[in-house]
Structure formats: C-alpha cells, structure tokens
C-alpha cells in the first residue's frame, strides 16, 4: 500500500463569473477528501465560491527545457499583437 496520499492541484473561483484559478496543491486520499482539504486549506479567508481539484498526475506539462523552441519565436513577432489598429475615441478600455 502506498502510505502517501496522492497530490492534487486546486483551482478556486473567487467570485461568480470569474474563472477558476490555480492556487496551489495538497495531498488527499481521493477527490472527495481533496475538496474538503482544499476548503480548509485554501478558502478559510473567504477566497472562494467554488473549488475544482485535479489529480496532479493527470496534468501534462510542457518541458521547461523546450521553452526555447516553444516560446522564444514569439518574442520578435509584435505584429501578432492587435496593437496596430486606430481605435475610435469612444473605446476606452481596449
């Protein structure tokens, strides 16, 4: 038997209408316990209105070693940002 509980990633929605955001991880024996632990560990100061938990083992992450080929090519391609348009004055918050 594995004596260590598996790791879970915790996502909290801070207000209705907002996205769930990753806030940390914790150990729990199963999903039900993970929700309860997340409630105690991450929402005791009114941080949230909804919780998601995902087994950490189910997350596939990009390889930090590959960040060169994955992300750097975007650095010098400013034309991909929609910043070259003339906006009407009425639009304040673009």
């Amino acid at each position, binding site marked *: 038997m594995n004596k260590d*509980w598996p790791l879970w990633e915790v996502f909290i929605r801070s207000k209705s209408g907002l996205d769930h955001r990753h806030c940390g991880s*914790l*150990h729990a*024996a199963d999903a039900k*316990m993970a929700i*309860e*632990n997340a409630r*105690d*560990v991450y929402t*005791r100061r009114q941080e949230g209105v909804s919780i998601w938990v995902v087994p950490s083992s189910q997350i596939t992450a990009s390889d930090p070693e590959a960040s060169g080929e994955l992300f750097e090519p975007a650095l010098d391609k400013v034309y991909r940002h929609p910043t070259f348009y003339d906006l009407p004055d009425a639009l304040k918050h673009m």
Partner: protein
Amino acid sequence: MNYQYLLLLADNPLILGHRLSELCGHGPTLETDIALTNIALDLFGQVRNYCQYAAELHGEGKTEDQVAFLRYEHEYRNVLLTEQPNHDFAWVIGRQYLFDAYHLPLLTQLSDSKDSRLAGIAMKSIKEVRYHHRFSSEWVKRLGGGTEESHQRMQAAMDQLWSYTGELFLETEDEKAMKEAGVGADYGKMRPHFDADVQQVFHEAGLVIPEGPWHRTIGKNGVHSENLGYILADLQYMQRTYPNMEW
C-alpha cells in the same frame, strides 16, 4: 434567558475547542491539522457569542473573558465527552463526531428559540457545525472502513467514548426550565435525530454501536473527570497570571 443555561451552551464548544487547539501543529497531516484548527476557531467564535450574552445578562461589569476563563472547575458545565483527551486520531474524530451528531440537532432546535438572540446565535453557528459534522462523519467512515488497524482503533475509541453520550441527553434543572419556557432545546425531540445519524454513520463505517452502561457522572452539574483540571490549568493561565489582560 437563564445565565446557567448559556454557560451550558458555551462550555461544550469551549472545552472541545481547547482540546482541538492542543493539536494545532500536531495534526496527522498538514491538511487535517488546518481542518481541526478551523473547527476549533469556529467553536471559539460560538463561545464568544454565548459568553458575551451571558456577561450582559449577568451585568455588574462582567466581561466575556471573565465568563469564559474565571470560574472554578465545578462551575464549568461542559459534558464529560468534550474533555476527553486526544489519545489518537480515532479518539479525536470519534469525540468530534459524537458531539457533532448532538450539536447539529441542538442548534436546529435553538434556531426556533423564543429568545431571538439565542436563535440568532444558533442560526449563525449551524452552518459551521454542518461542516464539522460532514468532516467528522467522513473520517469515521474512512477510518472504520480503512485498514485493519484504523478500523480497530476507530471501534476502540467509540467503545470508550460511547459511554459519555448518555449524559448529552440527561436534562438538568436549568435545561428543563428553558425547554418549558420555549427557549431551550427539547432532548426528547432531538434524540431520534442523534440515533438515526449514529446508526447510519456507524453502519456505513462498518462499526458496531457499543452497548451501555452509560456514565452517570454529570459534567453538566459541575462534576468532572480529572481531565478538566489539567485543561483549566492551561486555559486559565493567562487570565490568572495577568488578571483582566486583553488580547
């Protein structure tokens, strides 16, 4: 409202909360440590509500701290269940669950109290206690249905703790008077909820509900086990050493 009745309500969460606070930093895992500490803090919040009410009722400049901390052992009205020590995690969970199974129907009844201030305190507390009950009953089931050792420890804890549940429903003079005034709880109506709850949770946990006999010593009347003396030595230290200190 009867002053002694408020003490009866305040002292159970006070002493149980103190027992839980002893585990702060010592919980079996970080997550359960925080959960138990959260429960202790919820309970202390409830204690403050009762003690503030009691202090106002008493008058003569009495403060909530004096109500909570400056009484002699025989003046504390908590049930013996809440002063039981933290032998192991199964004891902590068993003690918590048995108290929650009592606390939940108690607050449900007090929410309909004719005393509107008491009803307000109960309505505020009941959401917290619903979560306590959820936490403790889940753990009773997990330990009861877990490994051979966790099952054996959970059953052993319940075998010991069960004898203290009789006292929960023994009515004192003050409780009788408050019940008849429509202010306090009616144990006759609460008992079936407690029994049904215990039957379901023990069944799901694969545990056997122990037989009597029930203890006849009554913490509610101020007759305590030696445990309370040690608790009070800790609990009262600051107020005895630095009288009227404020946090």
